[in-house]
C-alpha cells in the first residue's frame, strides 16, 4: 500500500502544482494544456488512492490520503513539489517528470500486480501526450530566441539536481515483498536519460553536471515547498473537518 501511495503522491502533487497555472497561463492554449495535464495527473492519483483505500480497508476512502496526511507521510519526489517559477521552470520540471513517468508506466504495465498493470496501461496513453507536449516546448523555447534559451538553461541548471531521485530505489522499492510488483526504477534510468539527452540536444541546451543530487522525498524528507502546497490543498479539511459535498 505504501508503494501505491508513493505513486499517487507524485501525480497528486504535480497535478496540484500545475493547477496553480489555471487562469495564469502565458497564453490561453497553454493555460488549457497545462490544466489538462493537471487533470490527467489528478485522475491518476485518484485511481491509485482508491486502490490504496481498498488495500488498507477499515473504511478508508481516496480522500483520506491527500487531505489527512502531513508532510512527513508524503512519499512524492522532490522534483514535483518544486515551485512553478516562470514557464521555463514549469516546462523543465514537467519534461523531467514525463521522461521518468512514461518509462515508469511502460515498465509498470508488466507488474505482477494486475491492478497496477491496468492503471499503467491506461495512464500511459495520457503520459505519452504529456511527454510529447513537454518535449516540444523544451525544443521550441530552448532552440528559440536568445532570451528563451537563457531562461530554459537557467531552469535546467537549477532543477537538474532533482532528476535522478526518481531512479534511485528507496528501501521500500527494494523490499523483497515488492519484487515483480514495484518497478525496478534503476532499470528505466537509461531509457529516460536517453530521451532526456536527445531532447536537450535538439533544444540546444547544455545538460549541466550534477554536483549535489537531491533525494529524500521517497522517505518523507521534503523541501520546504511541500508544506505550503499542503496548507492550500488541505485548508478546507483542516478548517471544517470531514466536510463533504
Amino acid at each position, binding site marked *: 500500500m505504501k508503494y501505491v501511495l508513493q505513486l499517487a503522491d507524485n501525480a497528486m502533487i504535480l497535478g496540484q502544482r500545475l493547477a496553480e497555472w489555471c487562469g495564469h497561463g502565458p497564453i490561453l*492554449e*497553454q493555460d*488549457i*494544456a497545462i490544466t*489538462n*495535464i493537471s*487533470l*490527467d*495527473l*489528478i*485522475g*491518476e492519483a*485518484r*485511481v491509485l488512492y482508491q486502490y490504496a483505500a481498498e488495500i488498507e480497508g477499515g473504511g478508508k476512502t481516496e480522500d483520506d490520503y491527500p487531505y489527512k496526511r502531513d508532510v512527513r507521510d508524503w512519499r512524492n519526489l522532490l522534483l514535483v513539489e518544486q515551485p512553478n517559477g516562470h514557464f521555463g521552470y514549469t516546462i523543465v520540471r514537467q519534461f523531467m517528470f514525463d521522461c521518468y513517468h512514461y518509462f515508469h508506466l*511502460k515498465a509498470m504495465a508488466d507488474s505482477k500486480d494486475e491492478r497496477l498493470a*491496468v*492503471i499503467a*496501461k*491506461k*495512464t500511459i*496513453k*495520457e503520459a*505519452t*501526450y504529456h*511527454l*510529447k*507536449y513537454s*518535449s516540444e516546448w523544451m525544443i521550441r523555447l530552448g532552440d528559440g530566441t536568445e532570451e528563451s534559451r537563457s531562461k530554459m538553461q537557467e531552469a535546467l541548471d537549477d532543477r537538474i539536481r532533482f532528476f535522478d531521485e526518481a531512479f534511485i530505489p528507496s528501501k521500500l522499492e527494494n523490499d523483497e515483498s515488492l519484487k515483480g510488483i514495484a518497478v525496478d526504477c534503476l532499470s528505466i534510468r537509461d531509457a529516460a536519460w536517453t530521451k532526456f539527452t536527445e531532447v536537450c540536444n535538439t533544444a540546444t541546451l547544455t545538460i549541466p553536471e550534477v554536483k549535489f543530487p537531491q533525494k529524500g522525498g521517497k522517505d518523507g524528507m521534503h523541501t520546504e515547498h511541500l508544506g505550503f502546497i499542503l496548507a492550500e490543498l488541505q485548508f478546507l479539511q483542516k478548517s471544517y473537518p470531514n466536510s463533504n459535498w
Partner: protein
Amino acid sequence: MVENKSHIEEVLRNVTDPEIPVLTIQELGIYQGFESEGDKITVLITPTYTGCPAMDMITVNVKSAMEDAGYKNVVVKLVLSPIWTTDMISQEGHRKLKEYGIAPPVEKTTDSSFLSGEEKVVPCPQCESKNTQLISQFGSTACKALYKCNDCLEPFDYFKCY
C-alpha cells in the same frame, strides 16, 4: 419487478454524454454492460480519460434515466478494464461527431511510435479540407485537440486518438 433485460439495455443505450450530447454512452464506447441481482442493477462504465470530470455527471444521468424507466435500485460502477480507446467509438459515433463539428479520430489507438511520429492529417469537419493545422494538443476537454482549417479558417475540435 419483472426484470427485462432488453428494456434495461435500451434505456442504458440511450443515455447521452454530457460533453458531447449527440453521442450516446454506447456510441462513445464507455458503456460496458450491466449486471443484475434481484432488483439491484449494476451498470458498468469505463472512463475515457482517467481524470475525466464528466464521469460523475454520467453516473447521475445513468441513474436518473434508469429511475425514469422504473428501476430504482441502480449502482454505477466505474471499471478500468477493458481500457477505453478511441477504437471503441462506433461508426455511427464517428459520423455523428463529424456532423456535430468535431473531427473524429483518424487513426487507431495511440502507440509509442506516436512520440516520434509525423503530425497526422485531420480533415476539417466543416469543409473536408485536408489543409488543417494543429493549434494545441490539448483542447476544450482532455480528450480533444484544437485545430484550425486553413481553407475555411474555422477552428475545430479533434477527438484525439487514445
